[in-house]
């Protein structure tokens, strides 16, 4: 999955806007929602991993910094 969060989020927002404007036909609605759910899943995974990573880095920084 070479996808970026930015791209995924942009697509997700696009889908949300389309659905909100009811400019999505019933024919593709399920498909769109499916795509959205995938994008959300991807974004959340990415966010969680980033959060985890950032937390680890911050924790390291703090252990390094605090005794000084």
């Amino acid at each position, binding site marked *: 999955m070479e996808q970026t969060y930015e791209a995924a989020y942009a697509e997700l927002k696009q889908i949300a806007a389309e*659905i909100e404007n009811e400019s999505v036909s019933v024919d593709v609605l399920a498909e769109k*929602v499916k795509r959205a759910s995938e994008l*959300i899943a991807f974004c959340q995974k990415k966010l969680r991993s980033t959060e985890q990573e950032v937390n680890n880095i*911050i924790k390291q920084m703090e252990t390094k910094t605090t005794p000084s």
Partner: protein
Amino acid sequence: MSEFHYIKLSELIQKVEDTLRNTFGNEQYWIIAEISGHKFYANNDRHYFEFIEKSETSNDPITKIRGVSWVSGSQRIKLFEQETGQLFTNGIQVLVKVKIEFHKVYGMQLVMQDIDPSFTLGNLELQRRETLHKLATGFPDIIQKVGAEYFTRNKKISIPPVIQKIAIIGSPNSEGYIDFTHTVSSNLFGYKFSIDIYQSTVQGGDAEFELINKLIAIHESGKAYDCVVIIRGGGAKSDFLVFDKFKLSLAIAKFPIPVITGIGHHNDVSIVDMMAHTSTKTPTKAAEFIISHNRQFEEELLILQKAVVIKSQQMLSVQMQRIHLANTTIVNQARTYINFHKDSLTGLHQIITNNTKSILYALQTNLVHLLNQMLSQPKITTASRQNELNNQINNLKVFSQKFIINQKGFVNHYISLINMMKPDNILKKGFAIIAQNGKIISDSENIKKGDELTITMEKHIISTTVNSKIEQDGTNI
């Protein structure tokens, strides 16, 4: 020899004595004379001298007589000396009261009864003024009088900062000389001097020329004297007249080496004092002046030294402080600087940590928002589609029913129309159908009188024959 008439010397002298006595008796006279050949015997308090009167033109005496002052006269002389500050001595002009005394052995002499100090004073003062006037007016390049002061060439010479080589004019045996050399050599500060003595009498008739000669000798010696000191006297009263002399005064005024006087004058200032570079009252004072002059120089040196030292110390201390300040500044500032950077780093650290967290949080929030949208919106969409469908169903129902009703209406319209037109209904209204030969006639043109017609009415069919035919103009209906 016997023919000669003679008397004894004593007889003659007796006659002279008698004549003098008869003529002058105890008469006393105020006379003006100059004193000469003066001797004073302190043990019996007697003065012996001569009264002289000089020619106006030359210095030679034209009259001369012995004078004496006994104890009473001597007391007057003492008062005179006290009052004038001038010794009763050779060369002074006096106004004295005398009586003539004759002695068979010693001859005639004038016994001084009284002496008028004011005359001598006036006389001396007059001479002084004349001399000063001559000096002040005759030599403008050497002497200038400004106010009461006399500025002489000698005064304009600056004394060297240190007086060390001294030429003394005076008598080496005099108290003044001893005082001077003693004071100079035994000075507290240990200053050393090189002193040349130019011996000279400082009183009496020849003193003026001797003094001038010594000045010339000093000048001609070629030695670089720092000053010339003229001293005289000591404790005793002296004769100052020479120091008011014109030539000596002029010589001093123009002398190229500074002249310091110490001529033992308490009450008055001599013209020489006025012309000299510096005048002091006594030889000791002159010596003290020289020492203090040197001391002043040394003190100036010491003041400068002190200034140099103090200022140097100040400078050093200021520099020390500056260095110290620079040190403090650098130390504090370096620490401040490091701390500033530490704080900056901490700040950046915090910004990064906090903002990263808030970015993630915001993203999470956004995502949740989108998620919620996803959770709700599709249902809304399908529901609204469902509504639309339901509406359409309703539309179909309503529109179809309306459509059929309308169609029914149209058909009903025609039903009533047609019903109205049915022949039965027409007959019911009283209309009749006319037929000829079994054919319904609607046009009455071809009907002629006598034609057989069948009239069909609602209830009956009537057969008839035509009787008449007239035009119908609408008025008979």
